[in-house]
């Protein structure tokens, strides 16, 4: 699966709520497969996508697989740039404390545990989009 040539900047943009549609889950599947290709990967959660990261989901009553644990595994796949739209959180009455605490271990700093989630403003999102080579929309 190795690729010749330079690494590309990949951004996965998640704008939809989980469970009502499958996009959140099928986006995660792409991210996990994509991790093997060693690109420079970022995830952006904006609009209703911020709901994907809420903690304490219990899907037993709707018979669907609860995939929220997968987000906390992303750090192990070197997916540790997880951007969350702070305005989207605010207008939904949510704070960072409502979301899962996602971390990764920095091998350059003796495997120190670091936060993966970074709250971003609209200007930072605009900048983030502009610097990407490829954007996947979910």
């Amino acid at each position, binding site marked *: 699966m190795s690729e010749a040539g330079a690494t590309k900047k990949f951004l996965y943009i998640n704008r939809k709520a989980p469970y009502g549609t499958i996009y959140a889950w099928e986006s995660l599947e792409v991210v996990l497969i994509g991790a093997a290709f060693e690109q420079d990967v970022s995830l952006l959660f904006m609009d209703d996508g911020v*709901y994907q990261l809420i903690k*304490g989901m*219990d899907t037993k009553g709707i018979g669907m697989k609860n995939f929220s644990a997968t987000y906390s595994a992303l750090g192990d796949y070197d997916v540790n740039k997880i951007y969350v739209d702070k305005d989207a959180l605010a207008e939904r009455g949510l704070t960072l404390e409502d979301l899962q605490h996602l971390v990764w271990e920095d091998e350059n700093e003796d495997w120190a545990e670091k936060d993966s989630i970074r709250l971003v403003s609209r200007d930072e999102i605009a900048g983030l989009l502009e610097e990407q080579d490829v954007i996947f929309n979910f």
Partner: protein
Amino acid sequence: MLHIVNKSPFTTTSLESCLRVSKPGATILLIEDGVYGALDGSRVSDAVRAALADRTVCVLGVDAAARGVEGKVLDGIDVVDYDGFVDLVAANDGVQSWL
């Protein structure tokens, strides 16, 4: 009359349309991604709280729980299960789904 809303009020205008034309005495049931309309502290909470003055608002508990938001539901909103959903349909003369 029973109104069913299954879309997030932050993404689509379904809840807004529902609130605009539902009558006093009507019941509004929030299911699927519609449950986000039941939460406290959001941009739409005031509009939903206002509806509670003359309409009944319910939320499907299993859909709220799946999304991790069961504990954030506004005071005054009834949490129902699928049995309760069936009862609401039976108890109301008409059903309108705001797809």
